[in-house]
């Protein structure tokens, strides 16, 4: 308990620093004092205008999506009791992405909420399938098998997405960046569209912290201490879909955030899920902001999609974890 508050403070501080860093970087580097004055409502110079109209929405998106993805990962690992689970490794993000691509293909030029609704359906279908395999009843697959299954499902969904894009040449160019996971060129409308769902998801996850703790004891034990097992699982399922579908609609299938963040946080703060959710949202936001800053400076003045940066940061971590533990097949 003692270390949680300093940790929380550190998290908030890191997020603030990276938030400002993200506002000041871009094809044009803007000094921090200009960033500062723009944040407090001054629009007198071009730089201040750039900050308030372009960079602020984008940075807010990185903040919200980072937090949302990380919390989705926490819920996923808690629900499946599988340390390798996360929405992107198990194909949920790809399901949402495929649904969005299909919606753009079938109903071009439709409103934002249409693709959002499609994303929900896609995420729900993919999540339903993979959770059925990994957490329902006594017949659970081992963590390893779930991951291999998830990878194969992701591959299938990914190549179907490619196929839909090939049928519609115009969209290839528009979609390339989004599919790589990107927060560039997104504005307030996208953010406001997804924000309520992400907020509900995060609050829900905070409220379910205690139940997630109980779930880790094993299902029999959890029922023994008086938890309503089925309703908890259903709630977590809904939270995961809310969070990952909304994040994917805004920023595309950003990889490895939901997987890596809960691991790092668990190492820092211990096994209490109430704190894990809180810390994870901060660390997730911080990491995505960091990835965003890096993606903007690495081939400056150009930029790479932020999803690429999270892959390069997250995949080595995944390999490291794969090496550290003995995994059982049976």
């Amino acid at each position, binding site marked *: 308990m003692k270390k949680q508050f300093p940790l929380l403070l550190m998290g908030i501080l890191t997020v603030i620093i990276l938030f400002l860093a993200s506002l000041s970087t871009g094809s044009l580097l803007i000094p921090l004092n200009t960033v500062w004055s723009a944040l407090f409502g001054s629009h007198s110079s071009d730089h201040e205008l750039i900050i308030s109209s372009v960079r602020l929405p984008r940075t807010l998106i990185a903040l919200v999506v980072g937090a949302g993805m990380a919390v989705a990962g926490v819920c996923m690992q808690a629900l499946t009791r599988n340390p390798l689970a996360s929405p992107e490794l198990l194909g949920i993000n790809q399901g949402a992405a495929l649904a969005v691509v299909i919606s753009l293909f079938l109903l071009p030029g439709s409103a934002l909420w249409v693709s959002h609704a499609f994303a929900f359906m896609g995420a729900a279908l993919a999540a339903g399938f993979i959770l059925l395999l990994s957490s329902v009843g006594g017949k659970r697959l081992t963590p390893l098998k779930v991951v291999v299954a998830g990878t194969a499902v992701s591959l*299938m969904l990914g190549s179907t997405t490619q196929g839909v894009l090939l049928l519609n040449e115009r969209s290839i160019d528009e979609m390339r960046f989004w599919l790589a996971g990107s927060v560039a060129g997104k504005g307030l409308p996208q953010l406001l569209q997804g924000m309520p769902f992400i907020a509900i998801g995060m609050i829900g996850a905070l409220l379910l912290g205690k139940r997630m703790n109980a779930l880790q004891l094993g299902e029999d034990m959890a029922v023994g201490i008086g938890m309503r097992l089925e309703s908890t699982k259903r709630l977590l399922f809904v939270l995961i879909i809310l969070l990952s579908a909304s994040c994917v609609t805004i920023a595309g299938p950003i990889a490895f955030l939901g997987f890596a963040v809960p691991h790092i946080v668990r190492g820092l703060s211990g096994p209490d899920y109430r704190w894990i959710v809180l810390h994870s949202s901060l660390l997730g936001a911080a990491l995505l902001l960091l990835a965003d800053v890096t993606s903007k400076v690495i081939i400056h003045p150009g930029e790479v999609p932020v999803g690429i940066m999270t892959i390069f940061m997250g995949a080595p971590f995944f*390999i490291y974890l794969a090496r550290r533990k003995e*995994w059982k*097949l049976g």
Partner: protein
Amino acid sequence: MIPSKLLPLIHIPLLLLLGFLVVLQIGTGEYPIALGDTLASLLGFGLPEHDFIVHTLRLPRTLIGLGVGASLAVAGTLLQGVTLNPLASPGVIGLNAGAGLAAVAAIVWLDVPLNWLPWMAFGGALLVALLCYILAWKQGLSPIRMVLVGIGIAAICQGLITVATLSGNIRLVQQASIWMTGSLYGRSWEHFWPYLPWVLVFLPLAWLFSKQLDLLGLGDAAASGLGYRVHYGRSVLLGIAVALAGSSVATAGTIGFVGLVAPHLARTLVGNKHAILIPTAALLGGLLVLAADFAGRTVLAPVEIPCGLITAMIGGPYMIYLLLREWRSA
């Protein structure tokens, strides 16, 4: 397990089906040729106007389809045998991604001559396999760790592929992205000849190692107890799988799921003995790719659906069926 006397009952119909598909495949197209005429032309006494279409345009494509299907199927069989994991395939552990990355980089950045592509792709697949091997090595090689590490490396390769497609010239990218989906479109003799040696060397080689695969299937302890050098054997088998997958991806792009589906179907047909399993899987693989290519060419004619998309559409649901079956018996 099927008694060996009955094996011809399985293989002869498959071969007949394959022969029929070959003739059908060659006969169909913008300029249809009757089955009899196609057959006559293939056997060398056809009409001159048919000869050109059959021999120059359609035969190489068909032969490449056969080779690629057989190679991927055998590569999948080897990988499933080595990792003892029924869900392993060249796609899951990143061989396709590595070969794809090398080839896409070659198309988009280096603009290399066509006949280098198999070597580049083979190099990419080899590099991924080596990395997998090194990173998964911890007092011996655990196949499970290898699958996990492979998933991580595949993610990094996908990230780099995205970087390549985003940074390149749009025309080259379009070409690379069609190629990535896996297509036999426009494949001719100039693609066939560089590819042929790989098939002729490594398919028989894989078959020669079928006893070793049977031994590995007994588990490490039993296999080394029988005097088999487990780690050495795994390395050789992996090398063969890499050669088969790498050269196929280089020739026809990433035709997914053949390496997963064909070995499974073969196993349900003839059982686990690799001396019979490998040729059966090769047969089924060739059959699958040809059928997929045929469907891709005819369903929406004159628009061509890349054959990799069709195999994904068939392979994905099949894999889901496999997973559900395993889940029910878990």
